[in-house]
């Protein structure tokens, strides 16, 4: 049984290698209850690989991943009821109507009141007008809201989000970010998100893990990182690190 003081996520000396590709190389970090942590890095930095290991979809080559006190992937079933996941790269069945998709997942997560919870989330996330439409017929923004509803069905203690606002227009992106902020305030949930959107990270994250080539090359709050790198915003810090031009890059691994 996890204690209140235990971290929600504890990653220790984690490696993942695919044949001769080192996707993740010796990263360690902790995420405390109620924190929002962002994994930031360019394409191929190892963000999605790290999230996959946190979800138990991928076995580490070396090191350990503990989520909600459960060792992943061996003890994943202890954690999976209390976490949820959203990614634009993973779909829901396209032929199923929105309410059917949500009903299936509501039963998988063992919801007490399936109809009530779906109605509540539909209202919150403004899905009501397209609940009866097939998921495959929806716009990108609508799909993102449905995926968000699916990821909130079980009111998770931990939400793992891989680029939650990718391919959304600024208005819908802002709407999703506002919703996540409210959800976190209301439930005290922990959020780990991978993103390329610096504005999103600056707005949501308490702590940022900057990744490059499978390593965490810097870590801190958005303001700490901006200050440390002598830049005006997180985007400039990101470019410095991604291009390897920062005096900080390559150092300060967490």
């Amino acid at each position, binding site marked *: 049984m996890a204690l209140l003081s235990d971290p929600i996520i504890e990653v220790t000396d984690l490696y993942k290698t695919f044949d001769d590709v080192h996707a993740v190389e010796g990263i360690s970090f902790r995420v405390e209850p109620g924190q929002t942590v962002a994994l930031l890095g360019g394409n191929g930095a190892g963000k999605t690989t790290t999230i996959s290991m946190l979800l138990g979809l*991928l076995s580490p080559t070396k090191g350990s991943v503990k989520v909600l*006190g459960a060792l992943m992937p061996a003890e994943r079933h202890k954690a999976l009821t209390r976490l949820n996941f959203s990614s634009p790269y993973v779909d829901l069945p396209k032929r199923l109507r929105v309410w059917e998709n949500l009903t299936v997942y509501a039963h*998988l*997560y*063992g919801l*007490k009141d399936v109809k009530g919870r779906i109605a509540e989330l539909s209202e919150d996330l403004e899905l009501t007008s397209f609940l009866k439409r097939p998921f495959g017929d929806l716009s990108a923004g609508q799909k993102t809201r449905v995926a968000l509803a699916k990821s909130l*069905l079980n*009111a998770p203690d931990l939400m793992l989000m891989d680029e939650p606002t990718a391919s959304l227009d600024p208005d819908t992106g802002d709407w999703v970010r506002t919703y996540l902020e409210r959800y976190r305030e209301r439930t005290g949930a922990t959020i780990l998100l991978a993103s390329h959107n610096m504005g999103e990270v600056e707005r949501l994250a308490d702590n940022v893990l900057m990744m490059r080539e499978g390593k965490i090359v810097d870590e801190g709050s958005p303001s700490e990182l901006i200050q440390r790198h002598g830049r005006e915003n997180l985007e400039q810090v990101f470019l410095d690190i991604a291009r390897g031009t920062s005096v900080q890059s390559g150092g300060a691994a967490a």
Partner: protein
Amino acid sequence: MSNQIHDDVCVPQGNFSFRRILAVMLRHLYVLRRSWPRLLELAYWPLIQMILWGFVTKFFMGHSSWVAEAAGVLISAVLLWDVLFRANLGVSLPFIEEMWSRNLAQLFVSPLRDAELISALILMSLVRTLISVTPAAFLAMPLYDVWVFELGIPLLAFFTNLLVFGSVIGITVAGLILRFGLGAESLCWLGIFLLAPVSAIYYPVDALPVWLQWVALSLPSAHTFEGMRMVLFDGVFSWHHFGWAVGLNVVLLSGATAFFLHMMKMARVKGLLMQQGE
């Protein structure tokens, strides 16, 4: 560590949950319920097969003393072969459908257990098989005067053994597709047809070369079709063949499940669960 809303909205589930099994079935039933082309396709092939073999039976009735002895032998064989064939597809196609719809990762990060997924696929296979073969079984009577239900209780034994063996093949194919990707999806059809010649569907096992008879007798399907012929020709239910079919099914189902779980483990090592899709 947990938030109160989570505790308010969720009921703790056990290690093996029928509700989660029903959830996976519901996903496929929603698709079937609304898609008449899919329902039609399920029933279409067994009907065509039955009509074709019905005419073959009529022809052989006057030209073959073997068929004349038991008029329903070919039609019963074709219907039971469809049970085996549809049971195989009933497991492998819903699994492939999860891959086509890029839904596999969502399922595997939900509390669904591997054993629950396998159970749901086998139960879906039962549903799809019943939808497939029932119309053909009923139409055989008015069209050819063959009432397959005359086989009685043994029919249930044959049906169950073929359903389980078809599921065994389906689970094995699903494991291979998980490992090798959708490029291997044609295994759904190839695997079952590879076994057809040695399953003794339309002819007795002793019609095969001796070395192939050993292969045939290591399959539950050959024992089932031998048992079916004994009921039709001799009016005797063969406990010997039934026992072998059940025993082999238990061994093969355990082996196929272990194989699928191993493939899942490999998929976790190789990172295949996040990549699956069209």
